[in-house]
């Protein structure tokens, strides 16, 4: 679809059909290694995109390029149709792109409220004096609105939380800036069954809030539970874009795309690892 066509459609259909973020021809190389080659991708409002691929396929590189942490070498990005440059984390943040990395970046020695507001504390009166009451109330409201109910107290130190609770806190923190797009790197890795379900429910609630969500995952079962669409990267190329919301594509097709095998050849394999 050319840019002219995109604009024409936007004009006629309203803003809903216009992708929140569209990447075109994004490439990134590290020395002689091409980590991303001519990647196209679209993220729409109220949609969960599963980003899958084998180790080294370029998933994290793509996320970092979108988040502005490691800007792409070439390629274009359009935010709601207008050309933007994702050259720094600040640029991405100002467009409303929030990223939750796999390491979560939480301070274990601080409580949930302090972590949620880290670097954007609410102060009252005197210079730099914390307004703990306001922060605690906002924290409770935020967690309630996201349906995070497993925390006994928002004054618990993060070191005492389970993996799922920590993931929920990290996702909730990324929601403080009212983002449009959430990039989640392996949100269910190393979580138990119940906690995985809770995080997947949380991701669905982000979608229901109208966010565009990108979920990187190794676990196809998880992706199938939550994603509307699966984008497959292989060796730095975008090799497939499968709608799955209504069962249009099977796990076997996606495994085949990930591995580059013909359909059926490895269809009996459950885990693409």
């Amino acid at each position, binding site marked *: 679809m050319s840019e002219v066509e995109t604009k024409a459609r936007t004009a006629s259909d309203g803003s809903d059909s216009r992708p929140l973020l569209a990447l075109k021809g994004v490439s990134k190389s590290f020395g002689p290694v091409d980590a991303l080659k001519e990647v196209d991708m679209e993220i729409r409002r109220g949609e969960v995109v599963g980003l899958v691929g084998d180790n080294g396929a370029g998933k994290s590189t793509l996320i970092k390029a979108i988040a502005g942490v490691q800007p792409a070498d070439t390629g274009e990005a359009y935010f709601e149709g207008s050309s933007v440059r994702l050259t720094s984390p600040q640029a991405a943040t100002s467009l409303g792109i929030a990223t939750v990395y796999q390491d979560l970046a939480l*301070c274990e*020695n601080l409580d949930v409220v*302090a972590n949620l507001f*880290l*670097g954007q504390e609410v*102060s009252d009166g005197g210079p730099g004096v*914390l307004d703990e*009451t306001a922060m605690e109330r906002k924290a409770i409201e935020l967690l309630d609105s996201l349906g995070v109910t497993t925390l006994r107290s928002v004054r618990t130190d993060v070191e005492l939380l389970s993996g799922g609770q920590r993931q929920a806190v990290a996702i909730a923190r990324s929601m403080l800036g009212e983002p449009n797009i959430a990039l989640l790197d392996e949100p269910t890795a190393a979580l138990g069954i119940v906690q995985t379900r809770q995080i997947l429910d949380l991701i669905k609630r982000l979608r229901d809030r109208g966010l565009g969500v990108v979920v990187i995952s190794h676990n196809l079962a998880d992706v199938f539970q939550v994603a509307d669409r699966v984008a497959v990267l292989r060796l730095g190329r975008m090799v497939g874009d499968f709608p799955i919301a209504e069962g249009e594509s099977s796990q076997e097709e996606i495994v085949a795309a990930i591995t580059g095998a013909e359909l059926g050849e490895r269809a009996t394999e459950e885990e693409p690892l």
Partner: protein
Amino acid sequence: MTPDGAATATADVEAVRERFSPVQMMRRIARGELGEVRVLIGIAVIWTIFQLANDRFLSAVNLSNLTLQIAAVATISVGVVLVLLLGEIDLSVGAVSGLAASVMAVLSVKEGLSPELAIVAGLLVGTVIGLFNGLIVTIFGIPSFVVTLAGLLGWQGVQLAVLGDTGSVNLPPSTVTDLTGTFFDPGIGWLLGFAAIGAYAATLWLSRRRRVAAGLEVDPLSVLAVKVVLVGAAILAAIAILNSDRGVPLAALIVIVLMALFSFLTQRTRYGRHIFAVGGNQEAARRAGIRINRIKVSVFMLASTLAAAGGMLAASRLLAVNQQSGSGDVLLLAIAGPVIAGTSLFGGRGFVWSALLGAIVIGSISNGMDLLGYDSDIKFMVTGAVLLAAVTIDAATRLRRQHG
């Protein structure tokens, strides 16, 4: 609606009663919460032992002396707490305290500068050294352990050079000696005490009222009352004891004000929150937009300035500055104190009052051993054993905390 509300309220009361029941309190102490309470229990045990061994230990004169003995190290320890919270260390605080006191003494006695200006100059020496430490640590990424170890040696050398051939400067009566030689009238002592209790109660009450207004969970008023009564009783008892000797010393007031000030800075301000964040997870702090290097440099500056202030208090009490000022066990005790009282050596965990509580523990042991006629050999061994025991208990409770 009404029956539901009533049921919830009853459940809340039950939950609170449960949480503050003796059994639960014991469990919380064992888990490593309420760290202050554990130290206070430790102090009570130490005091009981020494009182049983020598009934002069808890006399007004001796407790008054103890207060003056720990003022300098407690002040230095406040800076140590700040550095430890960052996950760094400052091994130069002892040497800096000696150098700053030397500069102050030479300027005021030999150069004829007014004592007040000499004190300011001494404090500035600390600030500049802290700036130097912080810049070396942040710009070159050298571990603070090494940078300040070099400082420990280097600044001692500068101190010897500053003191010159005589190697010792006696301080005539002046503002400097008044720092530890001034005692308030009993009336003023009581006034200060009641003002402190009033301020404490008002802080708790206002914070509770704000939380109630915001619809947040609060402790019942009885808990608040118990806190105020306990803290108030401790303050009034201390003032009664000090008043029955020479009165509340100015040095004690200085130390308490420093504790309150830096406790507020670390617990209630954005700056303090960022210190904890850097000490807890530096990468997370960086990604949250916290300017790590700025925090680090400023904390090293505060630590060295507080070390210099401690040096002034030590000089004031000794009525002299000599080549031994700030050397010997000053550094080790200033670091051991907060660690004994629950500030972690590994960053991100601790509280400013641990500087005072730790100084009381170490000072009591040293003072009690002196009373019983023991020499330094036994004193060092006992202090070392207490430090080891304290960090072992701390590590054990932390493990228990993390594994259920």
